[in-house]
């Protein structure tokens, strides 16, 4: 090791790989991953969240999974939970929608109302 800059570069890279273990979480993205969720395509949705967050270097938002929420017809379902525990539930998610949720909701703090469970219920 010839310089501190070199050490710092290694630190940054390693930290990024370990970010999943960081417990300072600003927001959580909870993806429904029970049988019907997976069947409806929850896995690509989850991966889209992971990739989008990584692309933007966001380390304090965690993507986790949950089981059946009980509204299988609306799957894939994703909940975005903020620090205070306020939940926004997005339904019928896709990878494209996931990218928009990251950009609008997670980065800019604007809930994507048109993807929420409320909007979906109204459309019926």
């Amino acid at each position, binding site marked *: 090791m010839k310089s501190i800059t070199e050490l710092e570069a*290694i630190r940054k890279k*390693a930290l990024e790989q370990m970010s999943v273990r960081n417990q300072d979480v600003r927001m959580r993205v909870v993806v429904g991953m029970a049988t019907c969720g997976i069947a409806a395509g929850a896995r690509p949705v989850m991966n889209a969240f992971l990739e989008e967050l990584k692309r933007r270097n966001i380390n304090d938002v965690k993507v986790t999974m949950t089981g059946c929420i009980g509204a299988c017809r609306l799957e894939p379902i994703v909940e975005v939970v903020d620090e205070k525990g306020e939940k926004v539930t997005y339904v019928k998610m896709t990878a494209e929608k996931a990218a928009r949720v990251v950009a609008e909701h997670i980065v800019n703090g604007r809930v994507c109302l048109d993807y929420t469970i409320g909007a979906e219920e109204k459309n019926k």
Partner: protein
Amino acid sequence: MQIYRSHVLVCGGTGCTSSNSGKIIEEFEVQLKNNKLENEVKVIKTGCFGLCAQGPIVVVYPEGSMYTMVKPEDVKEIVEEHLLKGRIVRRLLLSDIQTEEDTSAKSLEKVDFFKRQLRIALRNCGIINPEDINEYIAYDGYKALAKVLTEMEPEEVIDTIKKSGLRGRGGGGFPTGLKWEFAAKSQDDIKYVCCNADEGDPGAFMDRSILEGDPHSVIEAMIIAGYAIGANQGFIYVRAEYPIAVKRLDIAIKQAREYGLLGEDIFGTGFSFDIELRLGAGAFVCGEETALMTSIEGKRGEPRPRPPFPAVKGLWQKPTLLNNVETYANIPVIILKGPEWFASIGTEKSKGTKVFAVGGKINNTGLVEIPMGTTLREVIYDIGGGIPNGKKFKAAQTGGPSGGCIPASHIDTPIEYDTLVQLGSMMGSGGLIVMDEDTCMVDIAKFFLEFTVDESCGKCPPCRIGTKRMLEILERITGGKGEEGDIEKLEILAKNIKASALCGLGQTAPNPVLSTLRYFRDEYEAHVRDKKCPAGVCKSMMHYVINAELCKSCGICARNCPVKCISGQRGVPYVIDQDKCIKCGTCMEKCPFKAIFKNV
């Protein structure tokens, strides 16, 4: 490089490894493949989490769910439920958090066992992969070294350590900064830095856990010490009975060399330092500093008189700095967070934290790191989960064979160097053995003395002969053959050995006897005068008897007695032939009607 959405940390400490955590890792790899998750989930082997009694431990991130007592058969469920579907496997959570509502709980911090601790020396244990230098670097590893080499003069480093108030964690509690200063002031072109990783105290395993869980923290500290005192070569003396620690140290040294953190011209500053491992054969006396250095030189590990102290004449007659593993593990944090921060933790004269290996009659045996000044009660009840089976706390033994017992009446004493010494015990390296009402204090003293007699190097007569005489008296007392005057003889011998033995082993060997005499003299007297062991431990003085009224003459005891010394017939109470009974206790355990009693 790949980002994984989930990390599964499996404890690879000695405790968990011996309860099969290696198999668990293999099983995870198989199950992850079966479920096509191998590119999403990464399995990492860590060092000890501290909760060894609940091991093997598995922690799944990002949820931070801690699974305990995991068996290889459980892995399939963790993978299919938790990793595939996000459903926490509640039955495997620690029992005190099983009922929590929030399934995405940050379980680790919720557990009482961790809540009360402050982890400085153990900061990375159970958190990082000890075989990957990058993970250490990620958590600010080698940053303190960089700071020291590029921004600080050696005197400033020593000053920082002095200001922090850090004292040696290997037993004696000598101020670390002062020791560094002595070594720095010794004039010589060759000096050495040494790490004492011998850890011979029965019941102690904190140094092993640090080496297994975070070897780089010790390496980094030794390089810093080398810079501070002007040394370019370090030695780690580790006992060969610690194979996992040896292996991880070996890997860590190699990785540090690859990164140029050991070797020539570190950080381009012109400073060079390297470290070699030396394996000890596991003799307790080799932990004593002069014996340790003689052993590193390749000779038989026998102590020599001090002075000269190692800081003046140590390895190969050159000035040598010797510190304990845990002492070193504190150094990088002190440099990064500042001496004021460190000195704000703990008590007036004992700064920072201390790691204890808590064992014996306690629910959560394992490793705990607590701020100095925490009371024994907090350690035993709040962190340790109390005494099993509703038994009463009787005493805690600290300091191993050099220490003594703290009786229940002092349970609210804050734990620090000086209070423990006042109580006739000592901090020692941090073994803490909890004893309940069923422990015989004379027997405990005998246990530690047996250890000393076995481990005495034999160089000086007070230790070689004196401790043997003490042991003989203790054997007589516990054997029911104690004589009037035995207790006084023990005291005289103890005083003389303490005053005349050459090294610390002999000088402290009588402590367990003296401290139990101080608080439990009545137990000694009961053994000698009444030929009774109040705790019912010393076999010579107790026997098993069958209560004729309770006995239903079922014959179960007789069938289970290994020496067939119980006789009887239908309708008549059974009796034990006391002359043949070997006091194994089987009959009492097996009697369905609780008709057999231990008579003391």
